[in-house]
Each structure stands twice: as C-alpha cells, then as structure tokens.
C-alpha cells in the first residue's frame, strides 16, 4: 500500500508505506541529535525487537543520497515497526533548513495513523558528561496532564507510575524534538520526550541505554540493554562521521541555546 501526500508545492515530500500501518501504535523517534542518543537507541530497538521497515520518507528536503544495506538501496529516513510500535529513524543528519517541514510531516503522518503517543528519544547536552557514572534521564511532556502522570500524581489511560520521572521544568529545547513537542501540543497528540544527559558531539551509547531503560516504564516493553552497553566502543567508532555531520546541523539550529538560562520573572 502506498500513500502519497504533498505538503507544499515547492518541496516534494511523501511517505511511502510498504505494509499496512497499524492504528493506535506508539510512535518513537530516533533522529540525529545530541550524542546521537536517539539514533543509537532506535538501532538497538530495531535489532532487539526485530522490527521491519514499514514505511520511508521520499523527499527532496534530504541530501541526494541512499543508504546501502546488504547490497540494496534504502532511504535514509525510514519508519520501522510491528503491530504495536512505529519507530522513525534517520541515518542522515537532518538539514537544519528542512527540519520544520520534515518534522511537521512526520507528526501529521503519525496523527493520520492515529498513534496513541509520540515518544522522541534523545539527549541533553551536559558539559561535565565524562564525570557522570550514570547519566540521568529527564522527561518532557506535551500536556500538564501527562506531566502529572510522569510525576506519579495522576493516572493516564488507566495507568499510574510507581516511580516518578524527573521532569525538565524550565529551559529551552532546540531541534527536531522541540518541533515534535510543539506540533503535538498544537494538535493535542500526547507526547513524552525522554532525554538523557549526554555528550554534545560524541556518540553516547550509555545515554541511549539509559533512555531505553526509562522507555520501558512509559510503554511497558522489555528491551535488554546489556548488548548495547557491551557494543559501546564499536558504536562510538562507527558513529564518528554521522556525529560530525549532525554537529554541523545542530550548530546551524543554534542548539547551544539549550545551555541558556531562561528569563522568567
């Protein structure tokens, strides 16, 4: 089944669906950002849960490239999934000047598929990261009700959390996940972003593992992170080039604003 949608007349954007997309799934995001936390976490989920490619984005907003896997071409921005999960993952740094259109399109597609909740997985740049034994994970939610749920104060969809999440209360968010939360808030789609303390521009598999540990409390899935931690050095070696290109795009997005102290009087 193929869905073709054009968002604007100037740029070509469509999501091609390879199989029937389940309704009311959980939609995860693993996009290149600080420490490549989301991409590393997404790759691990794909291999652990043996997710299949269910759709891909076909657009001229991305660089003219394909990714080769097992000798065949693939689009760099793909959606993997099973009957319960949809996972958007990009193997290319998202160009800063196209980020709004790409993210708006992905969120709209998710809304069309009636997803239950959107969960962007990522990192918070932390200057003293190498001094941390275990990075902490913070949560950001799209509505006050979800914030209450994450704090363990109220129920959400018949569930109450035993252990509260640490909430990112004040500050700035910049980049693809800021937009997911913005569009979800505007369109009343539940969204919870999980962000681990991470290196700004070094691939951070440990931060990705911490996000996955916390993810299992939000959507009740079991993901073994031991393999991910074991393969840490290999991941850091392989991810150098995409990290470098991602850093360049983050600079264009003024990602360093996340260090800024907000003015609330």
């Amino acid at each position, binding site marked *: 089944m193929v869905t073709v949608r054009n968002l604007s007349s100037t740029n070509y954007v469509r999501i091609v669906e390879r199989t029937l997309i389940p309704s009311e799934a959980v939609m995860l995001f693993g996009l290149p950002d600080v420490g490549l936390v989301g991409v590393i976490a997404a790759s691990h989920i794909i291999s652990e849960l043996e997710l299949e490619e269910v759709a891909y984005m076909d657009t001229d907003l991305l660089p003219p490239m394909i990714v080769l896997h097992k000798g065949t071409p693939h689009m760099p921005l793909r959606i993997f999934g099973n009957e319960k999960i949809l996972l958007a993952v990009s193997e290319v740094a998202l160009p800063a000047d196209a980020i709004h259109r790409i993210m708006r399109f992905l969120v709209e597609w998710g809304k069309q598929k009636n997803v239950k909740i959107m969960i962007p997985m990522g990192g918070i740049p932390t200057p003293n990261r190498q*001094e941390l034994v275990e990075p902490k994970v913070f949560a950001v939610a799209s509505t006050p009700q979800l914030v209450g749920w994450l704090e363990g104060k109220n129920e959400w969809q018949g569930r109450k959390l035993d252990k509260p999440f640490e909430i990112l209360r004040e500050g700035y968010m910049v980049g693809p996940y800021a937009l997911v939360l913005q569009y979800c808030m505007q369109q009343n789609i539940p969204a919870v972003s999980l962000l681990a303390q991470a290196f700004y*521009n070094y691939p951070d598999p440990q931060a990705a593992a911490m996000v996955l540990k916390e993810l299992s409390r939000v959507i009740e899935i079991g993901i073994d992170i031991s393999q991910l931690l074991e393969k*840490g*050095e290999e991941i850091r070696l392989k991810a*150098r080039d995409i990290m470098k290109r991602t850093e360049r795009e983050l600079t264009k997005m003024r990602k360093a604003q996340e260090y800024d102290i907000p003015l609330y009087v």
Partner: protein
Amino acid sequence: MTPESRKRSIFELIREYMRAIEEEIEERVREFFEERPSWNPRTCTLEPLCNVFVTPNEVIITADLPYAEENDIEVKPLNENLVEIKAKLKRKICFRDLGITHHKGEFSMFYCQVHIPVAVESNRRKVSFRNGILEVRLPRKRGYKIKIE
C-alpha cells in the same frame, strides 16, 4: 522611490551581499577542513572527534578515543598553537569491521592535530583519560594586568 525606501533597499542589498559572502566562506572552510574522510589507510590512522574549550584560566581539549589504551596515548605540543594527539588502538580495525567492503586498509591508531586559539603554557599540561574520553588541560599564559584608575 522615496529616499527612505532607497536607503532601506541599499541596506538590504548589503545584508544580502554579506550573507552570500558568509555562506561562501563557510562552504570553503567546510570543503577544506571537513569534506574529507575521517580515515587514512596510508598512515593507518583514524581521526578522532575532538573539542576545544577556552575558559578564562585554561584551554581544555577533549577527544573521544574508543578502543584506545590509556598507556598508549601521547599528547605532544608541536608549537605554540598546535597539539598532536596519538592514541594506539587495542586492536587493529579494518574496513570490514566497520561494515565496509569496497575499501581496503586497516587502522592501528587515532591521530589528530588540534589548533589552540590562545597562548598556553603547554609544559604545564594535565592529561587524563576517563571512560574513553581524553582530556588535556593547558593553563593559559598570564598577560599583564590593566590598572583601573
């Protein structure tokens, strides 16, 4: 066209011109420094990811060195503005280990030269290696104090 609108359009033109120059410079810098492989099979070296932070008292260089052995890391000032980092890998890495079959070669070391933007006392450097991250701290050279009258 009123004098005001003519003035505005000239500023607009200058701004556009400046923006074009900035983009051109950025592109050239990127081509020169970044659009090249992060590996060199001739020297058997890989280029690590590096950062340089300048603080009021010191310059901090960090580098991500997976597979590096703490005892086989060498940090050497080449001149006043350049520090060389060499780190031997625990084992040789070939392209096949990185999932690539269309290139040949193997790598035994991380190598890079890091530019230091301010004057430092490189002989007073402190080097540490924790969780695969190298940190080099170089105290900044002290200048003279400006007397406030």
